[in-house]
């Protein structure tokens, strides 16, 4: 159908065209398949925290390896495919043009699925960079870049061929997404390969943390928020048959959101050794972000003005309205959590996973459900199979999510208060970390039950949509007619922004500039300022064996349960030891500060226990700590250290600026073997067989015993 207001005076040949809806269908199907897998993985790791036995004792099913798979599947596979489905459907219609190139669309689709499959084939085997939400190793990083570029070409190519002069607000959000995700991904993934499956981050310590959380936070912003706001702007007015509430609000909240969001990353690093001005920027921009975020919610919900009765009866609207409500909740909670004093309590606790899931489940899953209940009947030209089933799904998902959020809130606050409780004598009230773990295990059970309900709700949706599609008819594509773009659609007296909407490429450049301002101000000083991190001479690079152990630590995903940074707070210093110093991390490619303390901080674990303690603990944590929920790492006792990889590892580190000497590189193997022997000799005194000297476990113990020692035992920074 063409626009109802083709001026009669227009000349030119009428063009006929159709939309590529087959590609949309493919992405819809992929979304559903990856969605159920992502949720299944989430439920699995939720039960693992409630009962360690669910780790199954196998390397590839332990928490540390499945958790990255869950997050990658949820974000990039489930949400990613949904974005592509929704964008490709709406983009063509909003521009009245078929997608730029059908072949590119197919390469985009299959390439993306291949990337996901390769994630599933690497992460469980411990092939990971150890950077949260950017775990995929370098060959996959390159593939992601290529496919993203193909998406961009297809997207902007369609814009070039458009028959609609001005781009609608949904497309503004898509543009910001495509540009920013490209920048984030490329900058954060810079790394030097050691082998096909292993690389080290270009950045170290504080700088790596800054880049990583600039990425991590904005992955939430530009992968889970802006594209979905764009989709919301298309599908809510369509499904409700209502005009969008406020064009003016669209403009203001779009630009403020895009400009402000990018600054907020450092709120993940409050109280760390990141320079304080950067932390403060992260906090204040997060607070300023509150209203720009709510602008989207207001525009969405107010668009439903006058049709609230339909929200009750139409599954599509009901899910979308709920999604906006959760979006509003999450974007209120986010700024709240960024306030330093609140963050001091919430950071490292379960409150954060609770917060994240009000976003990913409440906002993303609910919105996707709403969109698909509109889209699938349209694509397959039929009616939704069962409204009743959709409503059952709705209640299951909502109650499951509320259980999730509340249990994690209670767990987080309870545990945090226990961590910080001190008596009059200046001693911790709960000095044994495990007491604070055992206390919240019931909450882990509630969360797991909530998660299961969400999973079941999703399966209901799969059945519902499958039956819908199956009842559908396959029709020949509809052919539309329209005149090509000509001067008649120019609006010479329009406002500046309206004109800008007619210049999509300039629009894209402006949004690039908007995100580069904050990025540059926060990141560039860390790259150029000598004094950004003041070195401490006692901090030396890891020995070859310790470096090897560190790679095991990364491989096993220990960083997903343990932090390595002591915050400057009395209770932390009493519990763990001296507060961390930026200089301690200068050789850490990548940094391993972590974001969650399911177990205690390990920044000062070196020398805290004898080797034998670790040996027994890794074999069976419960033998030394009653009630521990840490998984067993029995396989590390049977797999041999691959000594020959060491020289290459050291030389890549040297390339990255770690001061290893040539002789250390050539003698890496001998040095490592000698150190392994010292440890295994010590263990042998307690009756451990000598042959363990060759096993991975020795390298991991060596790493543990090194952590925090250089600075922890120095006079530097003493009271």
């Amino acid at each position, binding site marked *: 159908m063409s626009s*109802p207001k083709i001026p009669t005076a227009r000349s030119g040949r009428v063009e006929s065209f159709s939309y590529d809806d087959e590609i949309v269908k493919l992405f819809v199907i992929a979304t559903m398949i990856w969605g159920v897998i992502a949720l299944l993985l989430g439920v699995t790791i939720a039960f693992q925290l409630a009962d360690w036995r669910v780790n199954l004792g196998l390397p590839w099913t332990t928490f540390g390896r499945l958790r990255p798979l869950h997050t990658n599947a949820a974000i990039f596979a489930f949400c990613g495919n949904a974005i592509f489905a929704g964008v490709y459907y709406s983009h063509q219609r909003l521009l009245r043009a078929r997608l730029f190139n059908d072949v590119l669309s197919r390469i985009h689709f299959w390439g993306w699925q291949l990337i996901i499959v390769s994630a599933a084939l690497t992460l469980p085997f411990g092939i990971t960079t150890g950077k949260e939400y950017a775990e995929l190793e370098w060959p996959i990083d390159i593939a992601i870049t290529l496919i993203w570029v193909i998406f961009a070409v297809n997207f902007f190519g369609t814009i070039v061929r458009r028959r609609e002069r001005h781009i609608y607000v949904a497309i503004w959000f898509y543009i910001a997404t495509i540009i920013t995700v490209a920048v984030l991904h490329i900058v954060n993934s810079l790394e030097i390969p050691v082998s096909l499956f292993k690389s080290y981050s270009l950045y170290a310590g504080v700088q790596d943390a800054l880049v990583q959380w600039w990425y991590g936070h904005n992955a939430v912003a530009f992968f889970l928020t802006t594209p979905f706001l764009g989709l919301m702007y298309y599908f809510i007015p369509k499904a409700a048959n209502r*005009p969008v509430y406020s064009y003016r609000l669209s403009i203001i909240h779009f630009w403020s959101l895009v400009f402000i969001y990018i600054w907020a990353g450092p709120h993940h690093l409050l109280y760390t050794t990141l320079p304080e001005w950067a932390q403060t920027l992260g906090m204040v921009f997060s607070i300023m972000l509150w209203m720009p975020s*709510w602008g989207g919610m*207001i525009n969405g919900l107010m668009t439903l*003005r006058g*049709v609230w009765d339909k929200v009750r009866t139409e599954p599509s609207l009901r899910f979308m309205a709920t999604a906006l409500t959760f979006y509003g909740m999450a974007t209120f909670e986010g700024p709240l959590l960024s306030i330093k004093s609140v963050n001091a309590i919430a950071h490292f606790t379960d409150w954060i996973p609770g917060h994240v899931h009000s976003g990913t489940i409440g906002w993303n899953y609910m919105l996707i459900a709403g969109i698909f209940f509109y889209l699938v009947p*349209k694509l397959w030209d039929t009616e939704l199979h069962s409204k009743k089933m959709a409503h059952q799904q709705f209640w299951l998902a909502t109650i499951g999510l509320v259980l999730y959020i509340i249990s994690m809130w209670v767990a987080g606050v309870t545990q945090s208060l226990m961590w910080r409780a001190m008596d009059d004598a200046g001693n911790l009230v709960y*000095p044994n970390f495990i007491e604070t773990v055992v206390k919240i295990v019931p909450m882990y059970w509630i969360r797991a039950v909530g998660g299961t309900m969400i999973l079941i709700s999703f399966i209901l949706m799969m059945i519902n949509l499958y039956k819908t599609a199956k009842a559908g008819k396959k029709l020949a594509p509809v052919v539309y007619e329209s005149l090509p773009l000509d001067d008649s659609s120019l609006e010479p007296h329009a406002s500046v922004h309206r004109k800008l909407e007619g210049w999509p490429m300039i629009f894209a450049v402006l949004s690039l500039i908007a995100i580069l301002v904050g990025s540059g101000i926060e990141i560039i000083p860390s790259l150029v300022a000598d004094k950004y991190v003041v070195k401490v001479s006692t901090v030396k690079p890891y020995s070859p064996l310790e470096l090897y152990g560190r790679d095991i630590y990364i491989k096993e995903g220990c960083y997903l349960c343990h932090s390595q940074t002591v915050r400057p707070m009395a209770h932390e210093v009493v519990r763990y030891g001296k507060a961390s110093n930026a200089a301690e991390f200068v050789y850490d490619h990548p940094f391993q500060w972590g974001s969650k303390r399911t177990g205690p901080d390990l920044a000062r674990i070196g020398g805290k226990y004898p080797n034998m303690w670790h040996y*027994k603990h890794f074999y069976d944590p419960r033998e030394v700590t009653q009630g521990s929920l840490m998984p067993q790492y029995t396989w590390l006792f049977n797999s041999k250290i691959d000594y020959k990889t060491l020289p290459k590892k050291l030389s890549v580190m040297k390339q990255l600026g770690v001061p290893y000497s040539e002789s250390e590189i050539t003698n890496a193997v001998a040095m490592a073997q000698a150190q392994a022997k010292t440890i295994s000799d010590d263990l042998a005194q307690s009756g451990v067989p000598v042959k363990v000297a060759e096993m991975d476990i020795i390298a991991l113990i060596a790493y543990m015993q090194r952590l925090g020692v250089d600075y922890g035992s120095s006079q530097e920074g003493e*009271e």
Partner: protein
Amino acid sequence: MSQGEEKEKLHVEEDEKHLLLDHNYDNIHELNHPLPSWWNAIFLVSVIYGTAYFFYYQVFGGPTLKEEFHTEYGRVLAAQTEFKKLNGVFSQSFYDGIVKNDGVKKGEEVYELNCMPCHMENGKGDVGPNLTDKHWIVAKGNPDSIHHVVFHGSEANGMPAWGELIKKDEVYQAVAYVMTFRNTFVKGKEPQGEIVED
């Protein structure tokens, strides 16, 4: 129904007809409501607050996180020193009181909870030394010296300072329980340290 054809008419409320713009994208229309005044107000306040906060703490010398930490930690250290002065020294009369008050039995519980992982059942030793022989590394086999090592630990060698971790009574109870191992010579870890005769 074929795609693109709308079954229903666009739903516009009476009071907003005048706000309808002349935009049409795939039949999506736009109104131009003014920004809610509370939205404007909160946004403005957040920007002012954010700017003021930044300038106060980063430019005009407001206390840094480190300074706030030093104040807080100073208080804790003072309290700890005071506590050690009061409780770190062995008191025979307090010990006797604890022993009389079921100290050994309570000590067994304390031991199981805290000491077992390293000293094992009956004190036969594993990560920590055997506590049942005549050999002693740091302690001397009497309540006074055992209290000293339990309270202050031997942290360089892996024995935690329990004085900071468990209650005063519990330290004494553990000592009372450890005293019952004396000369039981349970087979376990080889003797370490020097012989101390009673």
